[in-house]
């Protein structure tokens, strides 16, 4: 490209000038790197240093910039040229700070620095400024699925922030569970008395708000498209379908109560036994008066059984704790005490869970005379017109039978999360045993087991609903990022995401509203969402080269890629998170990003001359995940932890973006070994793109054959799980690997290229 | 410094020839030096010590104290009520809190008081002598009159329960109060601050009824003092003083120990430091003689 002008700016500050031979570096940049402009500065990140670069871009027509200085993670505010492709050769954290000091290391140190300049130049040549997703759409309306406390709150919050809202509720009226409550637990001080739910007022605000459109008795028949341009079909019970376009979706589909019939041992089904929802019904009926049983019998004694069908380790019932039930029982016990202090009211618990200010609410119930007993209930049996609760009093350490007119079982929340697509996939993969397909989401197929109705009916090739985390909850896996679902622009909120009480649900709804707003704003600008938020690059595919192998569509962790009828991939850029997993997956390498591609990395790998077999100076390629492994390398440098000068590190967006061609290229061009460092995989995966490290691992399991074909030792490729805190460990791993190479000897492949 | 006047509640065991009589002598000596005027509450009665609970109910014990408060307010208006006995102080103060904080009980108390021709309408605060010393004087002021240093004596400060819990001395910790050690140091003595039984209960309330159990407590208290190399214990509680001193021989008899650890009341060592004689400091009233303290007192 004639009008491109490549410039290299080398920094001699931070001691680099004293230790490295800049004459050589400049020569490398000029002769091999073909840089047209080469400048050295003693303090490049200073205002003056940065100004020279700006001037060159402005006046000298410099189009591409190589910074030979510190790590790409350092001095980002100084080296900030949004309109200019930039590569960073990491001479400080990557060379100066990690190679042993002293003249006897000068040679290897210099070689390392030279190589990083070579690699930087090579990368730079292949880079372009991302133009942003051309397919971006800018519908900013927000769809809220579910008209309960969570959905209503999300709707009003978004609307009052200036966004159009579409609210879809499957019932004929708004309110969800909240509408079935007599009172709620207090949200703020004093935490002493049950409060009015405030639902009526909230519904009124929603119905009155000009920016909110409500569809009652309706469900989603179909959801297609992507952030900024979701096309949804809203169906009423009658079957009438309206087509709407929205920019983002908040799924507040709520929960169902655990089926009492599954708890016969606890008296599920007996006239004297209700769950908490049932008790609310009775309390609503009594409306402050004496609470009676459904059959009209008076209640002079009531026993609350906590954790009924919850916290179950046997796998029969719910494994989790629903969080709200202790406070709910305390509230319901107050219903009785407030109406008539003489009603004997006992709460049987194993751990009373009323965090935060809930402690005050607990105290208030005790003041009212509610008796709390730590006990494990074995059975609830019919006794006369009432029940016997048989339990072990854990404090008094004895078996007790306690009679009660009414028993309230604190059962748990069961999320309404629709179809478990992983379950669909399992069934699918059983059927199509296509060997080389990654153990990832596969084509959903009709299944024998009857699945619950889908909530979203996504037309995504990876299934109709949000992926579930565990126990049917659509929660985020990330502690720091609670809203990161694996479907861009769709956010779960409320008890469908995680069991929670009403206060948390309203908070959760507010947060989800923000994420939805953020999603439509980003989509409109063609920018990526979390974790590469703001990234303008997007996957570009050369369909003419595509062999319809479906790996990209199958492996995309975010279900961003659909297939057309000819099984060609259809990219939905604004669903894409820019991890590059598709790029790593593509056997014919037709997928790339403008600033990150098979070439930007491949050319770096091929840009080095390998010292010959007898030089005893092996070359080790290190492909390091930029999220955790690369920062760990930086921090090794920061703490001056030394490692072998034979290693050459290249940051990658995610191990999932590693295309095996890089590895074979490296081996073919005489590299002696290849290390891969990525994030933890498995149940507690720490990969920010969910399946990247998993997939890389899977692909590497196939690399051995390649190695055999090349008649190379399997040790020549090694992959590691690395945490960001492993700054000492990464150095150790590199040194050990260097030893391994020393042991197995230099690569026989040298000199062939 | 101007004379300080207080309404004094002596309590039963401080009376002449009673178990804390000698301690009272030393209090008088100490007060003389510090120019404190203690005036007995006229016709005072027993505080109805909490141990009497099986006999006397809450209200009965409260009115006994109410009577004392009323007499104090009547005859010694404006003067803080001061007690030297920890139990008396605690019981009085507890009753006062209840009377002042619970209108129902106040009414009932006055109904009863009427029978004695009295009516309680509040009173000055009830304070322990230690509070007076620390709050109204302060360690520096207490140090000034010192004429004899107690330098060669190692004191283990045994605070016990009732001056310490539940009310305690302002600013002190329940688990590790330091005021006794500071008092000792202001008198020039060596305070064994590492003494770890300083707030252990001596079981005094049950000394008669559960001798073996309470003597086990005393044994811990005395042993720890020996471990620390203490010459003697010092305490702000007459009951602890009597209890810990009196039963050592019993323990020796039953358990073959050789305990002979003197225990003095804080005012005794203060009196000595202020130059009192053995007699004036009540040091002649001990079963286990605090020899080292006596020697200093005897020095001219």
């Amino acid at each position, binding site marked *: 490209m004639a009008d491109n002008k490549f410039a290299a700016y080398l920094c001699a*500050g*931070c*001691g680099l000038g004293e230790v490295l031979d800049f004459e050589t570096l400049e020569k490398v940049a000029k002769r091999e790197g073909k840089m047209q402009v080469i400048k050295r500065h003693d*303090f490049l990140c*200073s205002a003056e240093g940065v100004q020279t670069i700006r001037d060159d871009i402005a006046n000298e027509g410099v189009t591409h910039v190589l910074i030979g200085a*510190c790590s790409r993670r*350092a*001095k980002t505010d100084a080296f900030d040229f949004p309109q200019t492709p930039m590569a960073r050769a990491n001479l400080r954290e990557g060379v100066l700070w990690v190679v042993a000091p002293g003249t006897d290391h000068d040679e290897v140190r210099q070689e390392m620095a030279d190589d990083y300049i070579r690699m930087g130049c090579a990368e730079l040549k292949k880079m372009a400024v991302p133009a942003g997703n051309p397919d971006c759409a800018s519908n900013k309306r927000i769809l809220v699925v579910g008209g309960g406390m969570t959905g209503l709150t999300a709707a009003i919050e978004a609307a*009052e*922030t*200036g966004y159009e809202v579409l609210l879809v509720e499957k019932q004929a009226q708004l309110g969800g569970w909240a509408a079935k409550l007599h009172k709620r637990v207090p949200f*703020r001080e004093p935490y002493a008395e049950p409060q009015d739910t405030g639902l009526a007022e909230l519904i009124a605000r929603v119905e009155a708000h000009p920016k909110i459109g409500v569809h009652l008795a309706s469900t989603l028949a179909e959801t297609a498209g992507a952030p900024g341009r979701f096309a949804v079909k809203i169906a009423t019970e009658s079957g009438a379908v309206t087509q709407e376009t929205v920019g983002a979706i908040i799924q507040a589909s709520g929960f169902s109560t655990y089926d009492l019939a599954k708890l016969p041992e606890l008296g599920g089904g007996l006239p004297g036994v209700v769950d908490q929802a049932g008790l609310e019904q009775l309390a609503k009926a009594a409306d402050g008066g004496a609470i009676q049983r459904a059959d009209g019998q008076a209640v002079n004694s009531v026993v609350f059984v906590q954790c009924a069908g919850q*916290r179950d*380790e046997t796998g029969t019932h719910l*494994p*989790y*704790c629903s*969080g709200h039930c202790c406070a709910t029982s305390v509230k319901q016990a107050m219903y009785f005490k407030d109406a008539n202090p003489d009603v004997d009211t006992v709460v049987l*618990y194993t*751990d*009373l*869970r*009323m*965090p*935060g*200010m809930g*402690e*005050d609410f607990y105290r208030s119930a005790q003041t009212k005379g509610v008796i709390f007993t730590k006990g494990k209930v074995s059975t609830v049996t019919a006794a006369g017109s009432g029940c016997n609760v048989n339990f072990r009093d*854990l*404090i008094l*350490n004895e078996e007790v039978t306690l009679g009660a007119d009414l028993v309230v079982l604190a059962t748990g929340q069961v999320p309404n999360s629709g179809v478990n697509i992983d379950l669909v996939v399992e069934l699918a993969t059983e059927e199509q045993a296509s060997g080389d397909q990654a153990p990832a989401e596969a084509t959903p197929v009709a299944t024998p087991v009857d699945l619950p109705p889908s909530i979203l009916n996504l037309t995504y090739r990876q299934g109709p609903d949000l992926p579930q985390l*565990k126990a049917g909850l659509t*929660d985020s896996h*990330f*502690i*720091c*990022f*609670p809203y990161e679902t694996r479907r861009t622009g769709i956010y779960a909120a409320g008890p469908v995401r995680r*069991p929670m009480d009403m206060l948390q649900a309203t908070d*959760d709804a*507010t*947060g989800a509203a*923000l*994420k939805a*707003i*953020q999603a439509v*704003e*980003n989509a409109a600008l063609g920018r990526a969402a979390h974790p590469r*938020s*703001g*990234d303008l690059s997007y996957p570009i595919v050369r369909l003419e080269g595509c062999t319809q192998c479906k790996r990209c569509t199958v492996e995309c962790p975010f279900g961003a890629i659909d297939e057309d009828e000819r099984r060609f991939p259809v990219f939905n850029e604004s669903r894409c998170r820019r991890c590059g997993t598709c790029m790593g997956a593509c056997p014919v390498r037709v997928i790339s990003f403008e600033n990150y591609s098979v070439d930007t990395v491949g050319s770096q790998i091929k840009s080095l001359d390998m010292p010959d077999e007898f030089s005893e100076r092996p070359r080790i390629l290190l492909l390091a995940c930029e999220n*955790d492994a690369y920062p760990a390398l930086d*921090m090794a440098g*920061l703490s001056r932890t030394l490692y072998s000068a034979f290693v050459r590190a290249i940051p990658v967006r995610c191990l999932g973006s590693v295309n095996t061609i890089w590895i074979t290229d490296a081996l073919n061009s005489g590299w002696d070994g290849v290390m891969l460092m990525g994030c933890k995989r498995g149940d*507690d995966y*720490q990969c920010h793109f969910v399946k990247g490290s998993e997939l890389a691992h899977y692909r590497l399991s196939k690399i051995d054959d390649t190695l055999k074909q090349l008649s190379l030792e399997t040790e020549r490729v090694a992959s590691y799980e690395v*945490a960001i805190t492993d700054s000492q460990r990464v150095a150790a791993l590199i040194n050990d690997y260097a030893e391994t190479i020393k042991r197995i000897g230099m690569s026989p492949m040298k000199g062939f290229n | 410094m101007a004379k300080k006047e207080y309404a004094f509640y002596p309590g039963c065991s401080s009376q002449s020839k009673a178990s804390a009589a000698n301690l009272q002598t030393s209090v008088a000596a100490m007060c003389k030096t510090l120019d404190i005027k203690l005036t007995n509450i006229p016709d005072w009665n027993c505080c109805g010590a909490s141990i009497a609970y099986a006999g006397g109910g809450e209200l009965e014990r409260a009115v006994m104290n109410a009577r004392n408060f009323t007499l104090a307010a009547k005859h010694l208006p404006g003067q803080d009520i001061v007690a030297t006995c920890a139990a008396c102080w605690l019981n009085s103060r507890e009753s006062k809190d209840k009377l002042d904080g619970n209108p129902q009980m106040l009414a009932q108390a006055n109904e009863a008081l009427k029978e004695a021709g009295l009516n309680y309408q509040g009173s000055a605060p009830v304070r322990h002598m230690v509070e007076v010393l620390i709050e109204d004087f302060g360690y520096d002021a207490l140090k000034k009159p010192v004429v004899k240093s107690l330098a060669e004596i190692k004191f283990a400060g045994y605070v016990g329960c009732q001056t310490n819990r539940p009310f305690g001395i302002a600013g002190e910790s*329940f*688990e*590790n109060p330091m005021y006794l050690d500071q008092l000792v140091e202001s008198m020039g003595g060596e305070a064994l601050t590492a003494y770890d039984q300083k707030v252990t209960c001596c079981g005094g309330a049950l000394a008669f009824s559960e001798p073996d159990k309470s003597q086990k407590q005393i044994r811990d208290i005395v042993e720890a003092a020996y471990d620390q190399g203490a010459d003697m214990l010092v305490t702000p509680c007459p009951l602890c003083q009597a209890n810990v001193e009196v039963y050592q021989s019993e323990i020796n008899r039953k358990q073959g120990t050789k305990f002979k650890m003197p225990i003095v009341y804080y005012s005794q060592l203060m009196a000595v430091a202020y130059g009192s004689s053995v007699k004036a400091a009540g040091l002649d009233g001990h079963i286990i003689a605090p020899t080292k303290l006596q020697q200093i007192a005897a020095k001219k």
Partner: protein
Amino acid sequence: MTAPIATSQTILVVGGGISGMTAALEAAECGRDVVLVERNPTLGGRTALLYRYFPKMCHPTCGLEINLRRLKANRRVRVLTMTEVAGITGQRGDYQATLKIRPRYVNERCTACGDCSAAVSAEIPNPYNYGMGQIKAAYLPHAMAYPQRYVLAPSLIGTADADLAKAACKVGAIDLEMQEETVQLSVGAVVWATGWRPYDAAKIQPYGYGRFPNVITSVEFERLADPSGPTGGKLLRPSDGKEAKNIAFIQCAGSRDENHLRHCSRICCMATLKQTQYVREALGEDGQSTVYYIDIRSIDRLEDFYQMVQRDKTVKFVKSKVARIAQADNGDPILHGVDTEGYHRYATPHDLVVLAIGMEPESNSIALPQDVITDSSGFIEGSPDGGMCGAGSASSPLDVNRSAQSATGAALRAIKVIHQTAREEA
């Protein structure tokens, strides 16, 4: 430095911990301008001082790295470190904030090369290890510090060391003349993400924190377990540096106690369950953890972590609030109390005691504007007009996940204020 440009369209976020960073970034990524002020020299707050998170046992620095990258990539967030809010006047949509910026004595020219640190000899107790161990008085707070810039301890100023540091800096980044600055700022909404602090353990007298060296707090234990902590990740007890194998965890240390904090701090149970796994990680079957508790509050889906720990043979649970701790001659803390499940008395020696210390709102130690309402424990509810709100553990005792959730909601509340006042003006 010059006063940052801000208008009534700007959101002020007070506190640069996980909550403050989240609130700031979420708002900025919606296209809003944010000023993020942090009292300390670096962002990251208390989470940066944790070794691992429950329940995944992943590392806080991992999330911190992502948030810092979001920050570096976003031009809408202006970060001010070593800055405190001296006062705020006005009402929703129109606040005047007064900021006090303490001198760092190191300017933006700093390249974090470390020459100044090498030059000085003075040391201070390491504030990033809760005072355990020493750090040079010219220091980079920690490896993830942002801004990645050194700081001089005020104690260094005026000493010969200060001049040595200045002389050692080749890029002229050290400015010993730096003075405290006051900056005026007009903003439209304020998010208080001032976080929490561990309750003063010394106030829990029966446990002898401060008297017994081998009684430490849970936050200190995080530093012990952390490879970058004072013991390089070894569980060495303070009194004699001996490896602690038999470790007691005391729940509700300050929490659920009307003598201390009347609220339940929510995170302590999970934090302790997590820390029992530090013991396992460090010692395998040789380690022994005993958890003394009233109620184990592993709420919602965190329950499975509790079940996992219950299956761990190296972990014992005793339902008891420990009555007191005594110290044996060899320095072992001896726990005295009663197991209330069936009444069993114990006097158990341990190598080390970890107090699961309660969360106190940091806002208790700062002067909040008049119209900011707090609850009886000091947690921030916000201003009646909604122009100011609390986020994260400043608003309630929350774990990291729920802090991020709370902060995301707070970001929306702030944006709403900006949006509505903007409309009113228009």
